[in-house]
């Protein structure tokens, strides 16, 4: 019989579990119910007791200032100690940057195996996990008989556990920390008004290389493109994604949009974000329409190319039009509303 252990961690504030952690708790509850398995929850945080509110099952935790920092040495030691204490056959965890940094090493330490970027858990007789290969181009369902089996869940694939009710009783698990040679000194983020990556935004706006190409008057209008895109992001609250070709132009000395970095890149060498809606502009190619849009709900595109094969079958609506003109009008309307 399987036993389920869900590992969670505190957010940056340290006073709440991350949303992705609460999603993993939901996945654990569903899986435990389906398999009639036992369920335990683990917490990695400096002060875990207040974070246990409404958590189901027995709660194990590590505590202490060393666990306030997302750092390999301390997090791996903490998760190893928790997994040894829980003795579970299936370990679920959010695929956050904090746990993605350590969980393969933890699986190795406890003699287990790991699969990551899990988007669904299924199966009747056995646990089956769905994940994508080749950057979201091939979907596979995998299973393993080896235990413990660690599964890192992609964010946005389950509802977050409400976490309502009383605090659970938390059992503190001791950790043998190794010598800590790394110190987290801070977070570097763009100024609030310059932040263009917004994971919780309802819309992903994708800017393609066409924005910096010569326009019908034979000139490039990069400054105008920057103002239009920045204006739209400000008015709509959308998150900005970009094609690789547009970001690469910066490294090749071409005219670029000043607020664009490799962090905005989606597709083969970028992220595959999850948003309810997506609007691509001046994109041509597989990256934005196939790979980068895999987890976008409703999709629309503005393109000058009526024969662009990449949008056909991938977008719900394609407007054959000049994105400069359209986005100027969109901004006008948004500013009035």
């Amino acid at each position, binding site marked *: 019989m399987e036993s389920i252990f869900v590992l969670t961690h505190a957010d940056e504030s340290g006073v709440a579990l991350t949303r992705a952690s609460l999603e993993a708790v939901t996945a654990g509850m569903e899986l435990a119910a389906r398999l009639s398995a036992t369920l335990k929850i683990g917490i990695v945080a400096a002060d875990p007791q207040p974070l246990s509110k409404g958590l189901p099952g027995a709660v194990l935790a590590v505590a202490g200032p060393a666990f306030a920092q997302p750092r390999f040495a301390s997090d791996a030691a903490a998760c190893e100690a928790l997994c040894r204490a829980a003795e579970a056959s299936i370990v679920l965890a959010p695929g956050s940057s904090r746990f993605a940094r350590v969980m393969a090493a933890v699986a190795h330490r406890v003699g287990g195996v790991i699969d990551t970027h899990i988007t669904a858990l299924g199966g009747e007789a056995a646990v089956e996990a769905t994940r994508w290969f080749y950057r979201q181009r091939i979907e596979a369902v995998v299973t393993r008989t080896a235990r413990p089996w660690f599964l890192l869940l992609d964010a946005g694939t389950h509802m977050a556990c409400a976490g309502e009710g009383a605090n659970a009783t938390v059992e503190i698990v001791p950790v043998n920390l190794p010598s800590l040679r790394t*110190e987290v000194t801070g977070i*570097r983020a763009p100024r609030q008004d310059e932040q263009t990556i*917004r994971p919780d935004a*309802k819309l992903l706006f994708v800017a393609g290389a066409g924005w910096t190409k010569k326009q019908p008057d034979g000139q490039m209008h990069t400054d105008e493109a920057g103002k239009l895109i920045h204006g739209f992001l400000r008015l709509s609250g959308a998150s900005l994604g970009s094609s690789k070709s547009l970001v690469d132009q910066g490294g090749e000395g071409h005219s670029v949009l000043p607020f664009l970095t490799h962090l905005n890149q989606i597709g083969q060498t970028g992220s595959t974000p999850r948003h309810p809606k997506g609007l691509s502009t001046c994109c041509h190619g597989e990256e934005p329409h196939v790979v980068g849009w895999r987890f976008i709900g409703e999709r629309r595109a503005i393109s000058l190319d*009526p024969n662009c094969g990449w949008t056909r079958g991938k*977008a719900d609506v394609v407007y054959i039009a000049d994105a400069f003109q359209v986005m100027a009008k969109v901004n006008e309307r948004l500013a009035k509303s």
Partner: protein
Amino acid sequence: MSNSLHIVVCAGIVPDPLQTLEPLATPTGPGLKNEMVLPAVLDPWAASALYEAAALAAKNPGSKLWLVALGPKAKLQQVMMTVAQKVAFELVPVDGPIGGFPDAHATAAALSSAIESIAGLDHTKLLLFGGWESASRGAGVTLQLIGERLGIVDQFFGVDEISLREDGSFEVLERVEGGKHQVSKCAGTPAVLGWATGNLAEPRNNPQVGMANMRTIMPALQKAQTAKLDANSLSYVSVNLPRQQRETRVEKNMTPDEIAAELVDWLGKDF
């Protein structure tokens, strides 16, 4: 600066991103149709790691750079014809299967054995580089498992920058959620760095570097050890291309103002 480094870059080879991929069942598990004849490239994020490693080695005299790559010898040779022209390195090839479907634990075991067999590698000076995820399996676990097997307890993933200091310590920028970077200070080597894009452009081809590299690459390929990858109980229930096909409405005759009105209406209540 007087920090001589021993940098090992782990890099796989993947199908050129522009190729159409089609899965197919083989006697040894899932694979890709015509996998051996698909044009291949060095894994993009691992390539970033290689370029960053070469730049770091150039700034620190006395440093050495190895490229450890697993794949069929013929494909490795094909990819090296291009990669060898970018930066100077010593190739440590491992002859093994190609693709994203073999188990990551077995891949890590084969690669860590290859690293441990490198003559003259000083583990106290070791920086283990690679991509934070591959463009094939995309699990982001192989490099971490290699680091764990080598006993390295300082690991960083989604790295975009490393700044080495005179005293051997370094600062690392790792990607975290929300388009931010986590800044960490590490006391020094050994460490694992799984690179994201970094900040360097792809170096131009340099035929002289290519010729110098190929003098050692060809003999290394001939002597490459063969690795058989264990499945570690991993089995595939199904492997498919996504079938979802949307009914695309193509609007050719709307004015910019009409399109804007429709888009704002579509954005509607969400904003």
